[in-house]
């Protein structure tokens, strides 16, 4: 089966600019996750969707980050405006259920550099 797709793979922007990342999960996976992975750290959950509804966005900096999954399939994560500390790899993952013990399948990630 096709894996989780993400684009772009790399993005370089200046601080205060906007950026958007796209994710297409594994077909049939109702649960979608966005993680932020800062260099030297493990992935940190930003937001979790179940179909097109938000399950957990407690770690999402809502003053600058937003995410949507309008049709319950693809998802977009946006940062506006970006700060230097947003430099990280943004990982999208999907699973067949919202149970955190269910295997999560990760995309290749988008490496964001904010100058």
């Amino acid at each position, binding site marked *: 089966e096709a894996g989780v797709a993400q684009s772009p793979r790399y993005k370089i922007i200046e601080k205060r600019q906007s950026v958007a990342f796209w994710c297409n999960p594994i077909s049939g996976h109702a649960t979608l996750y966005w993680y932020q992975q800062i260099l030297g750290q*493990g*992935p940190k959950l930003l937001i979790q969707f179940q179909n097109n509804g938000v399950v*957990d966005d*407690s770690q999402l900096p809502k003053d600058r980050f937003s995410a949507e999954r309008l049709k319950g399939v693809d998802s977009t994560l946006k940062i506006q405006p970006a700060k230097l500390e947003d430099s990280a790899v943004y990982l999208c993952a999907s699973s067949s259920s*919202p*149970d955190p*013990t269910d295997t999560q399948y*990760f*995309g290749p990630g988008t490496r964001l550099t904010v100058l």
Partner: protein
Amino acid sequence: AQRVTQPEKLLSVFKGAPVELKCNYSYSGSPELFWYVQYSRQRLQLLLRHISRESIKGFTADLNKGETSFHLKKPFAQEEDSAMYYCALPVYGGATNKLIFGTGTLLAVQP
């Protein structure tokens, strides 16, 4: 607080040597733990979960509730084992159920 600690950022061993990647956790309850792995230029993927008690690619991990540890072990390291390894803990809190990852350990197997 629920957390996962991986004390080593880097573990360097020679091919054929035993490997132990350390993971300690803090969790009020009966934990289920996982090891995820990321090989160079590949995606983060599940390696093994403690509940299945399986050996994957020669790796095993035993949950030690007394020491709150879930160390990953392999008796004889291979060069292809070189990768970033993350210990992960599922946590449950009402509507917030999620996977917490450790900071990871880079395993470098020298020829």
